[in-house]
């Protein structure tokens, strides 16, 4: 359990959080029309007759949007409803040409599922936790109002009208801003693995409605909740909870009551304010959309959805730890993002092939390289680095030289620097720039013999039990070899000679 608590004047309070995440479905066309969904087009250029709600226009479900919702449901181990239905949610607004949003209130396409958030001591999550998911339903997005184009009027851009959204509704299972943050990150990761949403919160592809209530520690009744709409980053989600929880505690402790209401988040001040109270709440008059037949999914469709699912984050992390022998930290870092594991797996395959060893034998080396060495080099170079040169082939070549003892860790970094700047071949760099270790026992032996001869006293002391002097001999040998000797060879030879 979390130990997130708010210390009030009257005692300790805990927070109960539920999230409704709206995720824009990755699909070329809208949920019920053929119009394009590309982001950033000129206003009102991606609007079909259906989106503009012209008289006599009818919605036709886009199978790809349905498929993506089902695959997402499968990825959170949810109940998939082979029979679901669309309902109309009726209200008047300028961004809603039909005067209703087609959604799924009564029979959503995806039922109960769950999602695991991992222990993260630093973030304040002491142990793994399962967060329940209530449902996922599919619905139409609304248009966008622009209030800054005209002194007295608002303009409306209908490009976004009708784009498919998944509304992913969690159970009120989260009890700290950290858990909520972890939940959104994990959900985003799963959506991106599945490919059902690009998870781009800045462009609004993912936004959350944050439900927060507070109660005295030990109370079993839930407090009255508020819902803060359209929060579009993980950090803001956490800020909203922090602010709302404290605000509600203040209200309650000063004898007031929390109103069940819809609130807005103000990014500039980090606070929330009332958008509309319960009294002003719309009566949406939901009813089944008579333009659409119930959505029935057959077995062939469902199995295609299941078979097309990739390895998901939890399974991948377990495999990284179990089969590849990576540390839990490395496994978590590498599996968090689609791009990260993608790069890692490509490099791992290339390196294993190059070295001629099974992947598990080189996985730790590749993981350390991918997570820490390579990003470090890239960062230190700044603008001098051309990311286009960071091919998996070049990196595998460096890792293979290192594995064979031809270059040291330091040399690997130096070579990679040159690769990133110039795109030259790593082996050619190692040869021409003299960035290779000397493993030639003859040269090293000669150096050692000379050092031992010049330091007879220390040799005697070492043989007399002063083991620490071994490091001195290594240092002297490396110095004599100008740092290019293979440390393993140096160690071995020294041990032989010192007896």
């Amino acid at each position, binding site marked *: 359990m979390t130990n997130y608590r708010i210390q009030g004047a009257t005692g300790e309070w805990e927070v109960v959080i539920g999230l409704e995440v709206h995720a824009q479905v990755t699909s070329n066309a809208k949920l019920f029309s053929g119009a394009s969904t590309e982001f950033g087009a000129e206003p009102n250029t991606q609007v079909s007759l259906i989106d503009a709600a012209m008289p*006599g226009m*009818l919605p*036709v479900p886009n199978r790809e949007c349905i498929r993506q919702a089902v695959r997402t449901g499968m990825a959170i181990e949810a109940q998939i409803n082979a029979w679901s239905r669309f309902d109309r949610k*009726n209200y008047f607004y300028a961004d809603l040409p*039909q*005067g209703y949003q087609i959604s799924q209130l009564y029979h959503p396409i995806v039922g109960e599922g769950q999602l695991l958030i991992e222990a993260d001591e630093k973030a304040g999550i002491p142990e793994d936790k399962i967060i329940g998911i209530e449902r996922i339903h599919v619905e139409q997005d609304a248009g966008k109002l622009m209030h800054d184009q005209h002194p007295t009027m*608002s303009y409306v851009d209908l490009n976004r009208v009708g784009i498919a959204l998944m509304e992913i509704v969690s159970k009120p299972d989260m009890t700290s801003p950290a858990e909520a943050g972890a939940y959104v990150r994990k959900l985003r990761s799963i959506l991106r693995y599945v490919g059902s949403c690009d998870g781009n919160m800045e462009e609004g592809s993912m936004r959350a409605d944050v439900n927060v209530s507070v109660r005295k520690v030990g109370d079993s009744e839930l407090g009255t909740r508020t819902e803060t709409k359209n929060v579009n980053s993980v950090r803001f989600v956490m800020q909203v909870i922090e602010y709302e929880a404290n605000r509600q505690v203040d209200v309650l402790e000063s004898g007031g009551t929390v109103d069940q209401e819809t609130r807005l988040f103000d990014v500039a001040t980090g606070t929330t304010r009332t958008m509309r109270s319960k009294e002003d709440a719309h009566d949406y*008059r939901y009813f089944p959309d*008579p*333009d659409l037949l119930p959505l029935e999914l057959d077995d062939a469709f469902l199995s295609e959805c299941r078979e097309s699912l990739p390895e998901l984050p939890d399974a991948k992390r377990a495999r990284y730890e179990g089969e590849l022998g990576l540390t839990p930290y490395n496994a978590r870092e590498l599996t968090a993002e689609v791009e990260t594991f993608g790069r890692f797996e490509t490099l791992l395959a290339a390196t294993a092939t190059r070295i001629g060893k099974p992947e598990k034998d080189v996985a730790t080396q590749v993981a350390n390289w991918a997570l820490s060495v390579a990003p470090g080099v890239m960062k230190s170079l700044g603008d001098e680095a051309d990311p286009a040169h960071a091919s998996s082939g070049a990196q595998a070549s460096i890792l293979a030289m290192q594995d064979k003892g031809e270059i040291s860790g330091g040399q690997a970094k130096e070579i990679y620097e040159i690769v990133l700047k110039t795109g030259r071949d790593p082996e050619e760099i190692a040869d021409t720039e003299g960035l290779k270790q000397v493993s030639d026992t003859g040269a090293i032996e000669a150096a050692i013999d000379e050092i031992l001869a010049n330091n007879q006293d220390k040799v005697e002391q070492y043989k007399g039990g002063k083991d620490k002097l071994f490091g001195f001999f290594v240092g002297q040998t490396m110095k004599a070899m100008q740092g290019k000797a293979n440390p393993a060879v140096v160690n071995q030879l020294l041990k032989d000679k010192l007896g």
Partner: protein
Amino acid sequence: MTDLTNLGVKAIRDGVAGGDFTAREVAEAFNANVAAAKDLNAFIVATPEKALEAADAVDAKRAKGEDLGQMGGVPIGMKDLFCTDGVQTTAASHILEGFVPQYESTVSANLWKAGAGMLGKLNLDQFAMGSSNETSYFGNVLSPWKKAGSNAALIPGGSSGGSSTAVAARLAPAATGTDTGGSIRQPAAVTGITGIKPTYGRCSRWGVVAFASSLDQAGPMARDVTDCAIMLEAMAGFDPKDSTSLDMPVPQWEAGLNADLKGKKVGIPREYRMDGTDQAILDSWERGKEWLRDAGAEIVDISLPHTKYALPAYYIIAPAEASSNLARYDGVRYGLRDLPEGAGLQDMYAATRAAGFGDEVKRRILIGTYVLSAGFYDAYYTQAQKIRTLVAQDFEKAWGECDLILAPTTPNAAFPLGGFDGDPLAMYLNDVFAVPASLAGLPAMSVPAMLNGDGLPLGLQIVGKPFDEQGVLNAGLAIEQRSGFDATPEKWW
């Protein structure tokens, strides 16, 4: 030469194909009748040039020996609920006055493809809400019929009242209609013409201004059963743009026409014998049974026990859907915008919709909004849906005992204009026999049976199993061949 406007669809199509006259001659004749019938107010917009253009195209094809299509050379009236590319489409409302679509409804496009031409856009009850064509923003349509010895104006039925008048008065050989709760059958019955509402889903709803989506269905209105079969064949077909469209091939209804009903059982639903039904209506029903028996059918009594709940359920479901379907008329993107000085968005909505919708439309929006609202939804909408299911089950059970159902189309003949002013509920009762088949999505047709004592036409309704338009048309044909109905209104306009 015979007056071409006395010809129906089949006669015109065959005559044009056979070279007896040109499509242009036909179009000119009907254009002239349309122009001379302004008093009837059947058309909101006449499009004589469209009719000529289509006719010339057909004549040119004939000259080249090409196929002229199922409706080749037949000019028709188009109910102004169908969106027509480049031609104003209003649903007879002020809010859509001046709206010119940039697209063509699937049904109208199918008809043009089959060689038909457009005489104009026909008047109707506003947004197809009404049974008398008195709710149009563009004025009432008058029936060409008059009571014997009376000069009082009569209603042409609704909502397809422009269509029924145009066909009955020989302004068009045929017209499109739409039927949500009787809007093809009731106007056909009271004007002495034939009209069929096919199985829900046969005709695409794409491009048809929506009233109640789960009920709306287009169909033909024409002078006889054969003409309806021909035109329905041209209108129907699977449309991937309508999710509720039937993905089935269109049968060859015209070729399949056969008035021999041997082996068919026709059910007579006892619940349709309602108090207050005109004696003449009951008489026509009796004659209908005789005609069908004569055609070889066996007449059986059946029960449709939930019939009396159908109309109330309809007046919950249809307004509920309408209240949502009509939300798009908000003054933002097209049609009327009423923006009072200093008004905000909500004020603009209110002003636009107050000015743009007629009283009946507002009444239904209010009813629909009420029955869907929190706290009332279960008591009204959910209950109504349950009744709808029960009504459909009544029919399913009946199909165990019969193949077709025969009933009156309406409880009375055409009534005078203004006859139900101030009593909308009494007006709603006009569709009491039509609504059950609508709720069940079944094919249903009205064919003329006889004139009543006032010299006004009465219709008989045939309801069939899902997808059995052929059975319905065949029974209609059997009645038509035996009724000898050939009455036409005396020209007074």
